[in-house]
């Protein structure tokens, strides 16, 4: 009996318990409302089904959430520029490929254009990192600059037009590679996860970032170059935004500077929060953020599948998000616990009397 309790407590106490439960609940509702939700079939040579859609569509969010997790952990702030930065990166890539006219002919090799786009993302990240690590500007304020200016920059690059790339292989990154039944963005997301985990596990970087996040001054006193780590994590977040930008633009084989990655930064922050990470910095869980990202997409896709009308969509989303965030609140847990204890005491007291 005590053993069972112990195991239960261990499961309950695990940091991924709540994120997983939330995802589980969102998916379970589908089981009742839309029984076909979990069907996966091979259609036209590719995997086809709601679950595949969720994984596919959440890929760029997962990538952004990974960058965001490190930013939150190391600096206790958020990078709200990632959506705009992904638009900048996409604009750079597409502009260098086709110039200011929609076309099918590449001006420079595809790989080179991708590298340019990613470098653009890194440059934006370095700019943020410089402002935050060196000039000690608050993260929210510093990244607000690119949040507002980023889309302007992307507009200047595209000259205010939606540029299309009319070249079939350009779509591979955001859709399917012929002959491969799994959407390419899923591979990209997995790659980003693997590389990040490898770097964090094989080096002490993960620990350093945590340390800096818990107490920047103390970290410096024990010999860690706090500023450097903060600079690096914002640069990394910029790179993640760049990669996400590549997927976003490839999905629609075009760059729409106004709408590419619009509001995705808020979803990325939400993913980190749903993943059970404290937005105040310090300890972090990448797995939690990834589950958080999938949960957000699962929610959107589920609401589509349940045929919620467009005007009610935001309301349902808000309700679910509020419940999820409340479930994670330690303060709420404490309140419920003390209430429970009071009630049980009351009942016990009555029995004694």
């Amino acid at each position: 009996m005590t053993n069972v309790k112990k195991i239960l407590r261990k499961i309950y106490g695990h940091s991924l318990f709540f994120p997983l439960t939330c995802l589980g609940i969102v998916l379970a509702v589908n089981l009742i409302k839309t029984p076909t939700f979990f069907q996966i079939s091979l259609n036209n040579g590719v995997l086809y089904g709601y679950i595949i859609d969720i994984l596919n569509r959440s890929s760029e969010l997962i990538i952004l959430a990974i960058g965001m997790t490190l930013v939150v952990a190391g600096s206790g702030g958020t990078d709200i520029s990632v959506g705009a930065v992904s638009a900048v990166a996409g604009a750079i890539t597409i502009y260098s490929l086709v110039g200011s006219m929609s076309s099918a002919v590449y001006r420079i090799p595809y790989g080179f254009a991708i590298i340019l786009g990613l470098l653009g993302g890194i440059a934006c990240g370095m700019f943020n990192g410089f402002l935050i690590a060196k000039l000690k500007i608050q993260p929210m304020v510093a990244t607000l600059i690119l949040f507002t200016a980023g889309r302007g920059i992307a507009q200047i690059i595209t000259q205010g037009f939606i540029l299309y790339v009319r070249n079939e292989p350009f779509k591979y990154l955001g859709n399917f590679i012929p002959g491969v039944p799994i959407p390419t963005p899923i591979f990209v997301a997995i790659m980003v996860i693997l590389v990040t985990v490898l770097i964090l596990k094989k080096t002490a970087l993960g620990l350093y970032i945590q340390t800096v996040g818990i107490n920047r001054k103390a970290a410096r006193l024990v010999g860690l170059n706090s500023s450097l780590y903060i600079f690096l994590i914002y640069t990394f977040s910029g790179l993640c935004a760049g990669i996400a930008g590549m997927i976003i633009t490839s999905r629609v084989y075009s760059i729409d500077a106004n709408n590419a990655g619009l509001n995705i930064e808020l979803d990325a922050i939400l993913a980190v929060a749903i993943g059970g990470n404290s937005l105040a910095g310090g300890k972090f869980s990448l797995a939690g953020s990834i589950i958080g990202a999938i949960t957000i997409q699962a929610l959107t896709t589920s609401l589509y599948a349940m045929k919620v009308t467009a005007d009610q969509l935001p309301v349902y989303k808000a309700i679910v998000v509020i419940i999820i965030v409340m479930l994670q609140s330690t303060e709420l847990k404490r309140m419920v616990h003390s209430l429970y204890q009071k009630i049980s005491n009351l009942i016990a007291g009555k029995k004694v009397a």
Partner: protein
Amino acid sequence: MKRVVGLLLVCLLGLFMWGCGKEAADQASKGTTDQKDDLIVVGYAQVGAESDWRTANTVSFQTTFVEENGYKLIFDDAQQKQENQIKAIRNFIQQEVDYIVLAPVVETGWETVLGEAKEAGIPVILSDRMIDVSDDSIYTAWVGGNFIKEGHDAVAWLDGYLKEQGRQDEQINIVTLQGTIGSSAQVGRTKGVEEKLPEHPNWVMLDRQTGEFTQSKGQEVMESFLKSYDDIDVVIAENDNMAFGAIDAIKAAGMDPGEDIIIIGYDAVKAAFEAMIAGDMNVSVECNPLHGPRVAEIIQKLEKGEKVEKIQYVDEGVFPAETAAELIDSRLY
């Protein structure tokens, strides 16, 4: 060190603003000098340059109001901010322009500044979006597209097309990709289709969902529609970009858009003509951005002292795929 950098930055900022200010002053002095030589001075407060449609709209004004036609256009790009437009209108009043054309960013908050224009005796002509005011005498006329009629046009085209195909008695299942909920294009186009639906009892509107006017959302929503419904015959996308997303989703599901599923779009942007030529799309209902000539017509009438109609719709066409190849080169946007 920090102070030096800070000082430098401040200097740079000052220089930058001085440059901008000079440009505006130049424009202002030009405006007043030109007034002497009998040109009609028109101040145009544009929203910004957020889409190809908007750019075409701007170009239409810039090519209509040229000196050869007897106009002097003072153009202001508000970068999607109402306060910039209000500032621009006050500038126009100060410069004593003859007419003010306003493409409002938002519907509300115009009473004060347009009241000032009215007091100054400058007629205001609205372009594209409507404003929400209690006293509609503060603007002279409004020029724009009729979104409800665009919805009617789409239904009329579909009716004709189905008859052509001999499918007029079949059950036709329709899904709609709506625009951003609450935008006038979304409200008008949804309503236009809805009004005409009862005339076709064999048409079934299976579902409506917003794709927020973007291609990627359109694709995402269409993916979901395709999994929820086995037999979709028609997709109505409330702008062309969402139609492109729907086309990709349909292709990914192994069907042939334009053939298996009829695709209807709105706006008739150039890329839609490309899609129609490729056989992926069936029709696009125009949302005409070329307001310049119509506004010029109104101004000419006002110059002669004639009365003008308050609400004026621009002419809008329906462009089926058959006409796409010959028309694509004439499309400006």
